[in-house]
């Protein structure tokens, strides 16, 4: 597996673990809309923001604060990738 792909897979595993710890669910698809799917409510997005910044050392800016960037594991992986983690 290429190094970049390994990093992405690692990020995905970390994000899944964080969501799982906070929802007691680990049976969700990577593209499931966590909010629409009822796993978390919108208050959780502030914690997701902190988690991504702390865990991956990225700085999220105003333009990044779109619910679509936090709605699924895949969306968060893409966000982290885009921010250059």
């Amino acid at each position: 597996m290429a190094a970049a792909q390994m990093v992405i897979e690692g990020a995905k595993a970390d994000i899944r673990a964080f969501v799982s710890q906070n929802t007691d669910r680990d049976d969700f698809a990577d593209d499931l809309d966590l909010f629409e799917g009822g796993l978390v409510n919108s208050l959780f997005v502030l914690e997701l923001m902190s988690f991504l910044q702390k865990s991956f050392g990225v700085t999220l800016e105003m333009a990044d604060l779109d619910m679509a960037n936090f709605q699924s594991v895949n969306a968060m992986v893409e966000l982290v990738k885009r921010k250059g983690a």
Partner: protein
Amino acid sequence: MLAGEMLNADQNKVHRELQDFARNLLAADAQAWDIAQELPEGVLRELGKAGYFGAMLPSKYGGLGWGALDYGLLNEAIGAHSVSLTGVINVQTMVAEGILKWGTSDQRERWLPQLASGKLLSAFALSEPGAGSDIEAISTTIAEDGDDLVIDGTKNWITFGDRADLFLVIGKVNGKGAAALVERGTPGLETAPHRDMIGFRAASLGQVRFDGCRVPKSHLLGRVGVAFPFVVPFALDLGRLNIAFTALGMLRTCLELCSEQALRREAFGKRLISHGTISAIIADMGVDFSACEAVCIACANARDRGSLRAMDATMTAKYFVTRAASRHVQNAIQILGASGCQEGSPLARFWGDAKTMEIIEGSNQIHQMILGPRFATLHRSRRASNSRAHQQDEKPTLMAASA
């Protein structure tokens, strides 16, 4: 005095200084301000001079650069005398920290130094006649019109709303949450006092009305769509920190007043403390106070070390301490008897303040709705992980036994 062993020497020193400041400035007159339903300008100026309106702001904006614990201790010290005043500190902090977190550099330069010094005092205009904890139900509209925003709607029960110089207003742009900054004096902005509330009576609660109120688009905080998931929860989270420590200060005063009464006053030939029923109440009050100290300090420490559990810890503190304060204000009135029921007693004032603190910054029922599932999830996960760890620990033992 908070339990010394929970704070280091420097923190204890800061707390003692804050308590002295609060006692000297507030103890004699806080009751009169509550009856008059207004905080004097001089007191607000003193707080500004001390830097407490910008306690957590960075020094580059004139703030003190404090962390959550020092800020909490400030509110504990002042909350022991005047909940109305911590209410003003609260909204000032929510607005200032909101601008720091979500604002542009121009917004920070323009408003933060004035907020830190107390030259500008602010209000967080969220609640409406038909919407409180359910923020998405608000009906205030913010329309984009060329280079301007046009605000229409009514906000109710806004702390310091009748006196604030700057308002952080939450509304909707085409159904999406948005936050805008509006200065007093802007045409279309009017305020009126909400008098005779049962709590926070000196905090100049007000109705804030926007009628075609026009501000430049540069007054938008963040961008359209970020208010509900980011700006408002961030502000309320800070508000809960303030409320938890304020309630702790109130609880301390209850304990001090009851202790004085129970040790000094005699009935049926012995001191009140020697009566089992009174001793039991004070025991409960003291134990709850100790638990509340621990919960508050744990929450502040979680915030200061950047824990991802800090928001949960803050909700836990707000919920636990406000309930305890409410319960023990009633107990304190019971112990003080008729003297605790008079308008001149701080306990009579605290009774309404404590009830109000169970409602604001997300009612305690909202806290139950959020904390219930969070605790269930957390502890089920812990049990599962302990169980897995236990099984792993057992393996070598079983293998050794069978060897």
